[in-house]
């Protein structure tokens, strides 16, 4: 199998798995239990928090563990909205956020909040002017993602955070797709809240975190025991959290060299595809992107058909974001960048990772060339001339 969908999920690194194993059958105590065996588990959770804080560049107490990037996003948006409801009820976000943010904004609209969805330029970058113009006196939160999951386009988060802060507004960024991919400390982004998720960086599914800058008002969303300072109650997924920490440590160990390697492979892919196939467009190509992601639109054919065509040959790529599978509408991200519904429908996402090698890229280019040609022969919208 050639797996080129690392933005959907990643394999658990061997060292991550090995770090997790003792927590299933040996050190399986409850971190809240009042004896040493429980405290062993507590210590493991707190050490994991410390390791992640070190990688992130924050204090351990500024991290709240959650079960998924989606939950982290929900906690950030709902938590701030509820904490600041008396201060205002306007939220600003972008048109290209992940559904975890967009659908949560919709839900908050149902609770009486007003939400402005800031547009993006044709290369997929949030329009800074528009965002600046959208801030109001009753704005309580701006949420703009760091790297987009479909295009890999990196948003000017530092600038946007500063802009929000000048107006006294809190800033959240969903860094699920940049964490571990960019050689920088997430704390330096200047955001008050940052979401990231273990399974996108070779950690396990079921663990994620929300960074909450000290002093940021945040209401708890899941209530119960005293875990995570009561902000996010529930018995901790100890093994998952330990694996998460190991994954973060590994990610930061080699983020620079791996970034360079992936960028070269991605460039090879894009060169290969554009020279092998006509009628292809690389979305966000002119913008700053995380090094592993390529969004390719093919004229006159359907992205899901390309995906299955490649799947049959053992190559895994994706249409839009994995989470939107099952939704027939074409990607809101590509539509926001100005693509027609049909071009958006003809798009695949190729996202590289640790196991990706040159020969995988070359095999993929050949398979793509053949699959695209085959589908265009079937296509009812393809000009008869060709």
């Amino acid at each position: 199998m050639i797996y080129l969908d690392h933005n959907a999920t990643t394999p658990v690194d061997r060292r991550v798995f090995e770090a997790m194993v003792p927590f299933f059958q040996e050190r399986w105590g409850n971190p809240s239990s009042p004896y040493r065996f429980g405290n062993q588990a507590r210590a493991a959770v707190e050490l994991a928090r410390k390791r992640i804080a070190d990688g992130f560049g924050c204090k351990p107490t500024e991290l709240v563990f959650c079960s998924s990037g989606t939950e982290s996003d929900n906690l950030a948006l709902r938590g701030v909205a509820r904490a600041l409801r008396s201060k205002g009820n306007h939220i600003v976000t972008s048109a290209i956020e992940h559904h975890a943010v967009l659908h949560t904004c919709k839900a908050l609209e149902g609770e009486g909040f007003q939400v402005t969805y800031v547009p993006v330029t044709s290369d997929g970058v949030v329009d800074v002017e528009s965002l600046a113009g959208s801030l109001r006196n009753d704005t309580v939160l701006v949420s703009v993602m760091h790297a987009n999951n479909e295009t890999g386009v990196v948003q000017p988060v530092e600038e946007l955070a500063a802009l929000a802060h000048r107006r006294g507004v809190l800033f959240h960024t969903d860094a699920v797709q940049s964490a571990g991919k960019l050689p920088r400390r997430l704390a330096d982004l200047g955001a008050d809240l940052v979401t990231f998720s273990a399974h996108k960086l070779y950690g396990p599914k079921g663990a994620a975190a929300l960074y909450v800058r000290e002093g940021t008002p945040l209401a708890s969303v899941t209530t119960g025991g005293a875990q995570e300072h009561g902000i996010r109650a529930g018995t901790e997924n100890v093994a998952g959290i330990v694996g998460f920490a190991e994954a973060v440590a590994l990610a930061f160990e080699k983020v620079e060299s791996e970034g360079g390697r992936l960028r070269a492979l991605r460039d090879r892919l894009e060169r290969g595809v554009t020279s092998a196939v006509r009628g292809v467009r690389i979305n966000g190509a002119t913008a700053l992107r995380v090094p592993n992601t390529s969004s390719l639109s093919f004229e006159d054919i359907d992205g899901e058909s390309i995906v299955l065509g490649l799947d049959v040959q053992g190559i895994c790529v994706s249409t839009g974001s994995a989470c939107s599978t099952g939704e027939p509408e074409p990607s809101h991200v590509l539509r926001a960048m100005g693509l027609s519904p049909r071009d958006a429908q003809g798009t695949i996402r190729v996202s590289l990772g640790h196991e990706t090698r040159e020969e995988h890229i070359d095999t993929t280019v050949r398979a793509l060339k053949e699959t695209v040609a085959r589908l265009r022969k079937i296509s009812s919208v393809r000009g008869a001339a060709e």
Partner: protein
Amino acid sequence: MEDESDNSNREPEVLPGPVLFYNEVVIDHFMNPRNVGELPEAETDGFGLVGDPSCGDQMKLWIAVRDDRIARVAFKSFGCPGAIATSSMLTALAEGKSIEDARRITDDDVIEALGGIPEKKRHCSLLGVRALQAAIEDWEKRRARS
């Protein structure tokens, strides 16, 4: 592992509950669709063009009719694997059938012939059926005119 639990966690051949993914028959019809192409104007007795506005899929279907039977059928399709595979199977089912029998082909027939398709892809199978019906109507109109 002990014997008792050995098989309990293996996925059974057929999962209980809804079909989750394309089966081998569907994938075969997607990879090797039957009757792909266009009929030349001269040979075309009926033509249908339909689209699914909800997902942007589109299908064109041509038929040649001899003695009230579908002698030849051809299609082209812009759409997801479900749309291509169901279109292919639809043409396979229609070819050689009398117009009356062909008209009665339902999307359930197509899905059954394919051995099932994922629930969320059911609407794709309608595309082929509707395109065939449009082509038959077209054939009737042309016949009425001539």
